[in-house]
């Protein structure tokens, strides 16, 4: 498989804290790469670096062979990098339909006429067809999470970054979300997925990247990574504390 994303010696510091520290890894086209690490490991900072919210202090990000390290978030989105947020951040005063339309028109580059058809397909996929005209601010957590997924999908991505998409959900709800993630993956879209629910990672991810204190710990088969000494020391040990 070809690498769609390559991260080389990526570093981001906030004052004296090295949130991401010389991190190097690659993402293969079409795979689901899980990212695990204890709280404060730098997972969300990594996503913010990949989407252009933060600019790196050192290192670079290659996307489909192009250096995108200094491109704006909007440009990266139009290149095909979509994302969801750990705490859902829908456009509250817009309807579910309009939330998706923003992604399809601006990120996906579709005309509004063409975007409407695309949005209908996504609404069907995420199961929010009956709530098309509901204001996003009025939705319960599960719907907000699925809207996050739908909105990222509306930008016509080739790579989606999922930030704890199942966090805060019941087991039943999490299973539903996992089902949607699988359907997205079946469309050939590459996924990088941060999740605290390790069983979900073991079930859903093709490979697993473990990081701690912003540094690379292990990367490979999910079960092997979870059972490796470095990860048990750096991650599970920290959890027990």
């Amino acid at each position: 498989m070809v690498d769609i994303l390559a991260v080389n010696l990526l570093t981001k510091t906030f004052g004296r804290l090295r949130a991401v520290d010389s991190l190097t890894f690659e993402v293969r086209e079409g795979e689901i790469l899980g990212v695990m690490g204890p709280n404060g490991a730098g997972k969300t900072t990594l996503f913010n670096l990949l989407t252009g919210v933060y600019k790196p202090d050192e290192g670079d990000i290659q996307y489909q062979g192009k250096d995108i390290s200094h491109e704006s978030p909007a440009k990266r989105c139009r290149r095909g990098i979509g994302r969801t947020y750990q705490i859902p951040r829908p456009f509250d005063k817009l309807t579910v339909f309009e939330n998706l339309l923003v992604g399809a028109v601006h990120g996906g580059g579709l005309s509004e006429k063409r975007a409407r058809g695309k949005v209908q397909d996504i609404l069907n996929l995420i199961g929010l067809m009956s709530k098309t005209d509901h204001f996003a601010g009025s939705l319960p957590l599960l719907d907000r999470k699925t809207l996050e997924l739908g909105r990222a999908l509306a930008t016509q991505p080739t790579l989606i970054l999922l930030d704890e998409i199942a966090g805060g959900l019941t087991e039943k709800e999490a299973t539903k979300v996992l089902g949607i993630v699988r359907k997205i993956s079946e469309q050939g879209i590459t996924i990088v997925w941060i999740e605290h629910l390790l069983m979900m990672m073991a079930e859903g991810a093709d490979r697993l990247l473990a990081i701690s204190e912003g540094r690379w710990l292990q990367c490979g088969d999910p079960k092997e990574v979870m059972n490796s000494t470095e990860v048990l020391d750096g991650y599970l040990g920290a959890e027990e504390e």
Partner: protein
Amino acid sequence: MKKAIYNSRWYVLAALVLILGIVPLMGDQYLLFFCMLFFLYLALAQMWNLLAGYSGLISLGQQSFVGMGGYVVAVMSNYYGVYIWLGVLLGGVFSALLGLFMSLFIFRMKGVYFAIGTWIFSEALLIWFSNWEYTKYGMGLFIKPNPNISMTEIYYASLIVGVGSVALVYGILRSKLGLGLMAMRDDEAVSETMGVEVFRSKLYCFLIGAFVTGSTAGILYIFQVFIQPYKAFAIDWTVKLVFIVIIGGIGTLEGPIVGAFVFVLLSQTLAEYFSVSMLILGAIAILVILIAPKGIMGTLQEKLGFEILSPRRK
């Protein structure tokens, strides 16, 4: 029933514009004057609403464009004999160019710094114009329209900018730019990661706002006949626009319409009590902020879902 009323809104609005179009034929000079002021303030407020209500740009320097529009009309007409309505358009163009120049500096600032930046520019312009021989220092200029125009012509020009400003903002909100603006209004950072070009969208709105404000001010100063820097570049202009938009409903298309009507009505009613009129207007603004923080139309939209000109997609 509700849907039928909603669908007939275009006919109602067209009828309303037609009625406003025959006001000069009614022969009531006060009504003519009242409606003219209403249209002019509506256009100015609609532009401030486009900036503050949709683009997240709190400008305290709209008077820069008011002064620029007014002075361009005066200079073009008096010194170069330019056709007066062309002068109005040039006032808009020069204001937009001024906006472009300002943006080089103030678009590096955010939030309150942006607001202060716009204000500083207007103060600098005030000082510049009050010390500039070309525009007769602080003494100001009498505007001699070329050719002489009637009150009816000024009225129709005001009608065009007033109704045009509403149509323009409606058109923007229904466009790709507007969809992005509404997303930005809710969450700027997220909208950017969804492909919305935040900087470019803001710049477009700032320039459109500058153009319309400058043109509108040109018409206003043709009516007022006299322009002087201390009035033209005074922050009072922006204070009035903030009042109109806040009481009408920020971030709603109908808000400036209601706000401009209330403002012109109150300011005309209280004109005899000039010394206390601003106090009363201020007290009303505070009352509205306390009782209905989203303004009259914002509250109606929230409580009753009442919208006449909805930019909503279905």
